[in-house]
């Protein structure tokens, strides 16, 4: 039975590759890259044999702890990444939970992440090539560590699922979990300035981690090599206890999951009345604006695309603090460029639900306008604040008209251009309900190119206000700044109206074809 499920897992993997050459090619590229990294890691482990054992131990404990954490966090982020053998799908078969647990553990271990972790973990043995006692213990400790990784990952997933967390909770979590990750860049660069001092702290951190369930298993061979057999024994006990508790936890929630499917309806509470539908005028345009407002509020894919804005802000503030202000000065135009382009994915986000626009015969202009209105209500204040506040704080208020002109120009022109772009090509986006950061298979090169082309067109069309703003910067004459503001708003508005008209006509003409490709994108 165990062997059967493992075989099924590989069969699913290979059949997935057979679906398209693009997937196969990217899988091969990914595999080559992974092998490269793997080789580097193994070589590194071997190199550690020739430094003081204290260092090999520190690396093993910290690396191992990070691996366990990774196994815990990554499945949370990439929800649905590999649910080919989920409990839900196996529920109907008469498999006792005990057997299923062993089988799923083996499947997790023999998946690609499992194999890679196992190889790297076992390669830590190489670090102890000069310490006989540790050399013998290392492979066993490594296997124990990897088992903890897999069991922890599976147990937390099962516990989470058996808690029947509502849909809303999962959607919010899938965004929230990403915030620290995106902020990692700035954090590391902040920390980077004091990396020397951290270097001295690493053994201390490792020492603490080695007494926690995260690092205990990885510490065993090092403790033996450093002549701390009692500590090694204690940590073996901690690691075994960890594995035992995890397996127990997993088994219990598995038993619950096998008999009672996690309810999916606990997520939504009754909401009040028509919500945004009461705020907008009762026209097709108003209805579409109201609907996109609801989606901005409720669909994590929309909000998720905004997560880049706070990140940009923090990055800009950080750069300003370290001496280069230019990014903070230009924050407003950056916001404008990011926001305007989000419209490009709108129809892709609709998916086949776009059929209701098509079958109602709503005009393309109403469709385009409604979407632009919602985004504008959000984007115009945001861009205004992001332009004005930094300039006031940095005491560059003379630049406000020029940069506001550029920002509005980019934003309005972007509305127009992406109104056409989203009617012209579809973006590969995750389906409704999937993790907003999951990149769908076949994220095709052409649509990426289409998006960059849209961006390039926006900048070319916004050249007049850009040039005026640069002149105003160069000469320091505020007249040019006001000229940039007027040109930006007027020209941007013209491009926006043109774009909405053209995009609307395009949607009316190509509607059925768009729906056909949307159906195909969903594998229907």
């Amino acid at each position, binding site marked *: 039975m165990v062997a059967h499920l493992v075989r099924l897992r590989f069969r699913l993997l290979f059949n997935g590759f057979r679906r398209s050459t693009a997937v196969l090619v990217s899988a091969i590229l990914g595999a080559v890259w992974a092998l490269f990294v793997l080789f580097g890691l193994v070589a590194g482990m071997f190199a550690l044999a020739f430094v003081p054992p204290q260092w090999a131990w520190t690396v093993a404990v910290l690396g191992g702890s990070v691996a366990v954490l990774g196994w815990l966090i990554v499945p949370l982020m990439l929800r649905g990444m590999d649910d080919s053998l989920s409990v839900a799908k196996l529920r109907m078969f008469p498999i006792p939970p005990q057997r299923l647990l062993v089988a799923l553990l083996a499947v997790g271990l023999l998946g690609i992440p499992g194999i890679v972790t196992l190889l790297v973990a076992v390669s830590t043995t190489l670090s102890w090539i000069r310490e006989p006692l540790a050399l013998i213990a290392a492979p066993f400790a490594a296997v124990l560590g990897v088992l903890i990784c897999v069991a922890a990952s599976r147990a937390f997933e099962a516990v989470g699922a058996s808690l029947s967390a509502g849909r809303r909770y999962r959607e919010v979590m899938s965004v929230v979990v990403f915030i620290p990750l995106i902020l990692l860049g700035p954090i590391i660069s902040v920390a980077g300035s004091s990396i020397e001092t951290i270097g001295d702290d690493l053994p201390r951190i490792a020492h603490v981690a080695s007494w926690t369930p995260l690092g205990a298993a990885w510490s065993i061979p090092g403790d033996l090599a450093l002549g701390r057999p009692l500590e090694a024994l204690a940590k073996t006990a901690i690691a075994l206890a960890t594995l035992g508790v995890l397996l127990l936890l997993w088994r219990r929630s598995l038993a619950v999951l096998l008999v009672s499917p996690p309810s999916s*309806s606990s997520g939504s509470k009754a909401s*009040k009345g028509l919500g945004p539908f009461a705020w907008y005028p009762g026209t097709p345009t108003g209805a579409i604006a109201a*609907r996109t407002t609801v989606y901005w509020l409720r669909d994590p894919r929309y909000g998720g695309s905004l997560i880049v804005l706070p990140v940009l802000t923090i990055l800009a503030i950080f750069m300003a603090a370290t001496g280069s202000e230019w990014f903070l000065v230009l924050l407003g135009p950056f916001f404008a460029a990011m926001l305007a382009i989000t419209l490009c994915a709108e129809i892709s986000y609709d*998916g086949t639900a776009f059929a209701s626009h098509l*079958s109602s015969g709503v005009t393309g202009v109403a469709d385009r306008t409604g979407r632009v209105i919602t985004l504008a209500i959000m984007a115009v204040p945001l861009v205004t604040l992001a332009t004005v506040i930094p300039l006031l704080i940095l005491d560059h208020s003379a630049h406000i008209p020029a940069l506001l002109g550029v920002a509005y120009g980019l934003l309005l022109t972007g509305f127009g251009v992406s109104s056409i772009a989203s009617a012209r090509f579809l973006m590969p986006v995750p389906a409704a309900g999937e993790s907003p950061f999951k990149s769908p298979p076949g994220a095709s090169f052409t649509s990426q190119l289409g998006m960059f082309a849209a961006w390039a067109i926006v900048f070319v069309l916004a050249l007049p206000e850009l040039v005026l703003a640069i002149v105003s910067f160069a000469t320091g004459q505020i007249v040019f700044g006001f000229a940039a503001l007027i040109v930006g708003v007027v020209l941007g508005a013209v491009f926006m109206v043109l774009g909405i008209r053209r995009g609307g006509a395009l949607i009316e003409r190509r509607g059925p074809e768009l729906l056909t490709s949307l*159906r195909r994108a969903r594998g229907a």
Partner: protein
Amino acid sequence: MTEDPSTPVVLTPDTPAPPIVAALRIAGLKKAFGDKVAVDDLDLTVPTGSFYGLVGPNGAGKTTTLSMATGLLRPDAGTIEVLGTDVWRDTVKAKSLVGVLSDGVALFDRLTGEQLVTYHGLLYGMDRETVAQRTADLLELLDLNDAGRKLVVDYSAGMTKKIALASALVHAPRLLVLDEPFESVDPVSAANIRDILAGYVRGGGTVIVSSHSMDLVQRMCDHVAVIGSGRLLAAGTTDEVRAGSTLEDRFVELVGGRQHSEGPSWLRTS
């Protein structure tokens, strides 16, 4: 093609006199996906005021045909008229006459049921008061009053069908095209929906349903067409098509592919 559109079966005395224009007239319809022909030179006329059943095996081209008839899929060749309006020439007018429930198409399911029906109403350009009135009526009619405030994504499959039906009805279309409307709907709701549809037909509307349930079609529809491999195999009043036998037997006879075996021996437990 034994069909005679000028003599629809009169259901009730107050049905308006048989009009000359058909509710739906399809002529020479063709559609191929790559080298797979989905609809092959199909002709079909649905008389106004009829309750028309469209049956066929899986992959026969029912959904493809209905998609083309409602302006969701562009045909390769052929003409489609809804109440005399060419669907692919005067698209907007044709669409305003038709209410659609598509199979295999998502809804905007992050809206509540009430919001979804309102959205559809407003998309058709109706004013807010009428939409609010009709939404309330439809939710009441389909027993969705409590669910109206919940998100559609959290609905059961049957409730989703019902809210989709409400969305298709809200603009009071003259022709209702329903692709698999009874799939995963419980018997009580199905009976309620049938009553609503029958009342709609009595009021002068036309309904086209596609279904796999022969029993249901035989009881519910006054006209029926059998489609197989993208072609029309039989069409006419239900009594004509079934020709004394049951619709199911007649269907199997027309479509073929029935196997007469008792299954493998190991499946017999006694």
